[in-house]
């Protein structure tokens, strides 16, 4: 009985029962979309919050996963019958617009669902493995790793936008219709996909929690705090870091694939520097050392993004910018770090100390409590 009240169980209840019952299909679809961003955020909690590796390239893996899925769906949508008006029937429409007359070789295997699903996981995993091994074996860490992963994100998005004929360019891969004949655009399909997504996310959450409780999790924490000591004790730090980086990449890719399935398209705007950093924002807002926080952070940040960019577009950037500065300067532990009682205690302590320098901070914190 006691277990029912654990925060994880409550989250499961919220995702699997409360949201589907209380939200309209449209809103539920939106929540489903936000939840796909929680996958990269979960990965970032593991590799940044616990492993100390800040990757600014999670969008690369999100995008690769999403594109692998989208390529399969696009090929299914471009059968010779429905593309009969094209000058070359049977290839995706954007290829036809770009005067391609045959399917490029690297598209061909994506006609197979099994291959595509494997590629969703393996391709990003392999890339992460290569990057991880190359960097961590040479003990490149911290800032350098962040900048290199960021550049990879920039490269991939420029490449996708530039190679219009092969990738759909800046519009991405759109008009995805069916998965093995099953219409993914219908309300019922969207509902089923929502549950699949939520279940996968909860699975990832439990897996992550399990990992952190294990010896591996403790080692990871040790690597973050005193890398040298772990190395001197005889552990292969590079291997550990590569492992968690690949794990985070795979999580991110699963999120990307689920995004494609639920939203029905994939574009370079989910690959580049900016989306990658928004994933870090979500993880930081939720609390970089809290797996649950990653889920709530993604929900909150992306809900805020939709709400503000619809209602007050000019305020959105200001708001997310200040939110980010605020999280870093005032709440380094994000949502998960806010506990009412502790905050009150701290406030009282600060008031007692009456240091004029910290006065503005106390004001800010009071605002969030009330």
């Amino acid at each position, binding site marked *: 009985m006691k277990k029912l009240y654990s925060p994880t169980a409550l989250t499961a209840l919220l995702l699997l029962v409360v949201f589907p019952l209380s939200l309209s299909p449209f809103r539920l679809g939106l929540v489903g979309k936000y939840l796909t961003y929680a996958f990269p955020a979960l990965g970032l909690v593991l590799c940044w919050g616990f492993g100390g590796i800040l990757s600014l390239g999670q969008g690369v893996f999100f995008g690769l996963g999403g594109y692998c899925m989208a390529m399969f769906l696009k090929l299914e949508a471009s059968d010779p019958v429905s593309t009969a008006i094209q000058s070359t029937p049977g290839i995706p429409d954007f290829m036809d617009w770009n005067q391609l007359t045959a399917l490029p070789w690297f598209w061909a295997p994506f006609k197979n669902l099994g291959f595509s699903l494997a590629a969703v996981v393996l391709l990003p995993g392999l890339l992460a493995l290569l990057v991880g091994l190359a960097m961590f074996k040479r003990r490149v860490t911290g*800032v*350098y790793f962040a900048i290199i992963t960021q550049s990879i994100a920039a490269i991939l998005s420029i490449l996708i936008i530039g190679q219009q004929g092969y990738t759909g360019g800046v519009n991405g891969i759109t008009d995805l219709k069916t998965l093995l004949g099953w219409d993914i655009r219908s309300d019922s399909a969207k509902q089923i996909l929502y549950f699949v997504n939520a279940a996968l996310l909860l699975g990832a959450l439990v897996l992550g929690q399990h990992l952190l409780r294990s010896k591996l999790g403790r080692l990871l924490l040790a690597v973050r705090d005193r890398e040298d000591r772990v190395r001197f004790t005889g552990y292969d730090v590079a291997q550990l870091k590569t492992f968690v980086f690949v794990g985070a990449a795979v999580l991110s890719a699963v999120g990307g694939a689920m995004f494609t399935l639920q939203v029905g398209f994939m574009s370079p705007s989910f690959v580049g520097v900016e989306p990658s950093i928004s994933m870090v924002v979500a993880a930081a807002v939720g609390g970089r050392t809290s797996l649950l926080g990653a889920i709530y952070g993604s929900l909150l940040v992306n809900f805020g993004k939709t709400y503000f960019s619809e209602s007050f577009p000019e305020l959105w950037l200001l708001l997310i*910018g200040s939110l*980010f500065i605020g*999280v870093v*300067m005032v709440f380094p532990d994000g949502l998960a770090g806010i506990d009412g009682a502790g905050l009150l205690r701290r406030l009282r302590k600060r008031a007692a100390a009456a240091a004029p320098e910290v006065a503005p901070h106390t004001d800010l914190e009071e605002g969030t409590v009330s």
Partner: protein
Amino acid sequence: MDSISDFGAILLMQGFNGLSNFCVLLLMALGLAIIFGQMGVINMAHGEFLTIGAYTTYVLSEICQRYAPWLSDSYFVLAVVVSFFIAGAVGLVVEHLMIRKLYTRPLDTLLATWGLSLIMQQVFRSIFGAREVSAVLPAWLMGSVQPLPGVDIPINGLLVMGLCLVLTSVIFFGLYRSRWGVRVRATTQNRVMSRATGIDTAHVDRLSFALGCGLAGIAGAAFTTIGSTGPTSGTLYIVDTFLVVVFGGAQSLLGGIASSFSIAQAQATMEFFLSGSTAKVLTLSAVILILMLRPQGLFSIRARS
């Protein structure tokens, strides 16, 4: 025979186009080499300081056209100075409000300055609108010289290059041959020890950060000669600039010069044969590959942290 000399002329001119870009990149990288290489602050808003410089130049050009036409020939020189001071002043404020509290958490400076860059972009958009604007360049800057038949070298490129040379030597001598440079290098190597020897590290940090931002402001003034300015102009440079600094070896000025030169030139030369995006992808990928083989950068002092 004729086509070969044509080809040579094109290559030379393309190389010169690369040089203008190289100068902007180098000025940005010089600023970032101080802020990131020396101080360890990952300033993701560095591009926005370029935008400040570019908008400053634009505003000055408008003012000169409207109120002081007699200045419109020489305003650009003024703009370089004003850009430096405005960007530097904003840098001072940012350092005081934000950065100085984060010196011990380098990865967090990245997140906070990213937030700052979003805010600054929105502020630019609110003030100047989303449309790109261009400063009116003085007539004498628009011409070109012909050192060889068939080779046109734009004068504004020459000016930017001259500016770049002067500033690079000033920074070089400042960092390696002056008391200030000794203090900066001491502070970055060991902040506690420097304070113990009587260096006012807070003061050094403040000035260094402002100087780095001011250099980005000058880069912005130089940028107006090669492109038009929009609220997000700076973001175009941020990834490149960080790569330049890392590629050159974060603490080596010479490395910064060599790497910004090679990156800008590689891109300009390839751009002529391939599409712009392919050139960029190839350049950046090459840099990443080299960094994977040689993570300490071209001219490193230390990369392992």
